């Protein structure tokens, strides 16, 4: 028993990834044998991962950063996993939010997918989550690339699995653009390998300092390619074009995980590379932070402006994601304590909010079949729970105090002033106002609007199953909880930021 415990404790970084990969490959096998086990097993995988995350978090909090060498091969040869506060932050966000989305999915999928593919969905879903976890803890360029590819392919899978024309088209678009993105990243990895001879982040970072003087152009191009690659993957304006189609046409749980987690993981990986790998001198050669700030502001503006004119609720949420990822990049671009805290915290906060909003949109579609915003008038009386949590999410998006969105915006705002760039404070404030324009009318119409008299508005409302309402309630409670008691989350994030 003690040996088992030791193995678990010593190998939990690997086990957490292996769990997801193992369970995901089990699914097709089970599919032909015990079909109804799939959902339970997928949830079990998440619970196991949560358990490992807990162990890792305990280790990090008691003994500091955990490093793990794959197969006991020490770096620079072997693959290294590094779990620091920032990784713990990402691991917790990913496992918790994806577990909640999965619980929702177990009921929703039967409604959206054909029966024979629903267990394959879990395969893809677990692969995606496993790849994200890998991305969060890996300390190796090539490993990172592999996980990015796994994530990209499985993300395409969970979009296209619905098998209607729209979804296939959207996933094809996503496939091509993300291939361009990962291609850029691979090229950039190759160029860095060329000048440093290392694939490990830590070693490469050390070797880059002298290399910068010898081969500045190589490293600059590598930085440019990294930036382009990650910006495509994270859907920052103007490389966001794949996102609205992909996120709106996919099944609701897919939309929730794609918008809530997947785009964030690339922002996180980009942040890690910028601050941990590239030498500080390079930022005096090229104003990359200012570029990020400009792109982030454009993203914030155009995401919101496009969202205002959307008629489909999921499409509107997708455009809103573009705006929100802009906040995360704004935090990265500010590159100071408060700004980074705000940006990183927004990864978690937005994961809660957007997952919840997409799930509640999914619940509305499940119960009524309505996707059009105009038809949602008066729906609040029929579905008080769903529209109630939607209202909480909308308030959080706007940044009303006592919701977690307020806390991250507050820190971002402080960051802009600390950095001496009050212009971006204006951007944050104006965008909050833009959020009001497209979120509040939905809530207002749902609760106070009179439904039209046409018979088509009299759609029978299905009852929402418990499996779907529980994740919604937990996410909404989380939004409020971390809005009123943000202290512990902030301490974790501030420790995470302190490593830079």
């Amino acid at each position, binding site marked *: 028993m003690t040996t088992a415990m030791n193995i678990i404790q010593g190998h939990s970084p690997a086990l957490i990834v292996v769990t997801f990969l193992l369970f995901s490959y089990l699914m097709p096998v089970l599919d032909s044998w015990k079909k109804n086990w799939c959902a339970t097993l997928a949830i079990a995988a998440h619970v196991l991962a949560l358990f490992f995350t807990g162990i890792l978090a305990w280790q990090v909090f008691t003994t500091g950063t955990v490093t793990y060498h794959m197969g006991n091969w020490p770096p620079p040869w072997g693959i290294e996993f590094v779990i620091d506060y920032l990784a713990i932050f990402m691991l917790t966000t990913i496992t918790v939010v994806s577990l909640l989305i999965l619980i929702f999915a177990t009921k929703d999928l039967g409604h959206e997918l054909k029966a024979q593919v629903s267990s394959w969905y879990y395969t893809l879903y677990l692969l995606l989550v496993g790849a994200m976890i890998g991305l969060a803890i890996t300390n190796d360029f090539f490993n990172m690339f592999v996980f990015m590819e796994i994530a990209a392919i499985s993300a395409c899978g969970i979009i296209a699995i619905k098998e209607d024309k729209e979804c296939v088209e959207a996933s094809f678009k996503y496939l091509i653009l993300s291939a361009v993105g990962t291609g850029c990243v691979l090229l950039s990895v190759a160029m860095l390998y060329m000048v440093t001879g290392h694939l490990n982040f830590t070693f490469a970072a050390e070797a880059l300092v002298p290399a910068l003087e010898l081969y500045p152009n190589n490293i600059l191009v590598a930085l440019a390619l990294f930036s382009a690659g990650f910006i495509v993957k994270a859907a920052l304006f103007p490389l966001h074009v794949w996102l609205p189609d992909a996120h709106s046409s996919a099944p609701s749980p897919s939309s929730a995980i794609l918008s809530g987690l997947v785009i964030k993981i690339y922002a996180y990986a980009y942040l890690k590379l910028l601050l941990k790998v590239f030498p500080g001198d390079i930022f005096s050669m090229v104003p990359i932070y200012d570029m990020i700030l400009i792109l982030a502001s454009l993203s914030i503006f155009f995401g919101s402006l496009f969202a205002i004119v959307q008629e489909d609720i999921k499409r509107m949420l997708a455009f809103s994601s573009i705006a929100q990822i802009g906040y995360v990049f704004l935090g990265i671009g500010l590159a100071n304590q408060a700004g980074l805290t705000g940006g990183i915290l927004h990864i978690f906060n937005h994961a809660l909010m957007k997952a919840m909003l997409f799930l509640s949109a999914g619940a509305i579609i499940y119960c009524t079949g309505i996707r059009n915003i105009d038809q949602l008038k008066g729906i609040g009386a029929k579905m008080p729970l769903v529209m109630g949590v939607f209202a909480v999410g909308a308030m959080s998006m*706007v940044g*009303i105090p006592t919701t977690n969105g307020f806390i991250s915006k*507050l820190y971002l*705002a*402080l960051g802009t002033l600390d950095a001496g760039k009050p212009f971006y*404070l204006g951007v944050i*404030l104006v965008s909050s106002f833009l959020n009001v324009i497209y979120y509040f009318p939905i809530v207002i119409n749902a609760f*106070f609007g009179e439904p039209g008299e046409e018979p088509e508005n009299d759609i029978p409302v299905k009852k929402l199953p418990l499996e779907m309402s529980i994740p919604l309630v937990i996410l909404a409670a989380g939004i409020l909880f971390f809005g009123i008691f943000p202290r512990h989350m*902030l301490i974790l994030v501030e420790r995470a930021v302190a490593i830079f």
Partner: protein
Amino acid sequence: MERTTSILPVFAALFPMVMTFAIYYVQKESPKLRNNLSVLTSIITFISVAAMYPIIAEGKIIVFELFEVLPDMGVVGTFRVDVLSFCLALVASFVWMLATIFSVDYMSHEHAQNRYYPTLIFTLGACIGIFVVGDLFSFFIFFELMSVISYVLVVHEESVEALKAGYKYIVMTIIGGLSLLLGVINTYEISGSVSLDQIGLITEPSGLALATFIAFLIGFGMKAGMFPLHVWLPDAHPVAPAPASALLSGVMLKTGAYGLIRVFYNVFTPEFLQETGWITIVTVLAVITILLGSAVALTQYDLKRRLAYSSIGQMGYILLGLSLFTHTALVGAVFHIFSHAFMKGCLFLCAGAIIVKTGQRDIRELSGIGLKMPVTMIAFTTAALAMIGIPPLNGFLSKWNLALGSLEAGAPVFVIVLLISSLLNGLYYLPIIISAFFGTEAQEKKFTFDEVPFKMLMPITILALLCLVFGVSPINLPFNLSKMVADMLLGGGI
């Protein structure tokens, strides 16, 4: 000043919020229980606020630290009650209590009461919270909560008109809120503190300081209905149910005034604002607000709309008094917060009573109503006369002090403004009263007593009596409190 600790402010702010959930859940059992629980909650809140009086009267400040909200920023969920906070919390919880009692009968014919009562009580908690917190962040949080939640009260009717007004309200509120946030963040950036426990957070004139001042002015001015940010007010206040209108006009507008006091006296200092001349912006806007509110009220024939415009004018008095920075003017302004809460609360409740009985909102149709509803109309008359500033009512006392304060400040022109506005007030209130009692229909009709139920009459009567009592009584609690506030703010005793 001496500090002391007490749980009362925390209780007063959070108790209604907690009770909201209780009220929400009992309504499934019985509407009667829900109503009684709402009334009980508002009474307990008032008592817990009033219970702070002995401590405040001794000249102490209540400080209570709840928990740390944001680490490493020195921002804690502090509660802090000085005499100014106490005044505002007292008048807010008092008028709220009466409005809740009034609601019980008024709302019994209305739809969606299950939404109305929890919202009403939650807003009470948020409103008290604004007054009793001790740092600008907590202030902002409660301010936004109150503003956003009270949207539900504004659109209660769910008519097209109400939704339109509500949309205007929510958009303006959010703009104001964001502007306020900008102000708070700037203050933190400049001074490294947002505590209300110290004076003069910003004492160096700079571009950022001016931006902060303007941001605060927009944020609070929006709420206080200051020209040119008043546009939401005349739409939003009349469409709400009468008790909610009374609270919106009587109490919630004052949160803006309270915020401005804090900005003028805590964030900045009077000397600083006078030296830089920034306060002139407020003075000029206040004068325009007074004249505009009163003048436009004349052209309105919807009773509640006329009252709403009158609120704009009256808020102008308060802003003027705040911006003059003389002791007497400040006493006048703070006392007018009390007076206006009583007067306008009374007037809106009377309007509600009239609407319940006659269904009539048009002023021209109210002829002879005084014979039908004598108690309501006598109360209305009292409050309206107080509004005009006829001695010995409380409105006179506040105007008298404001006028003296203007003279003290060496600006007799404001006395003329006050006189003109009083004249305008007379022009739009007196015709209502005259036609109610002596209108043509009154002469034909016989005396038919048809009053609203006791639970509606009682709040109206109490408010009208207070208008009289606080005008003549030698033991004038609000007036003494106002003097204490002025002593504290101008004496630098924070």
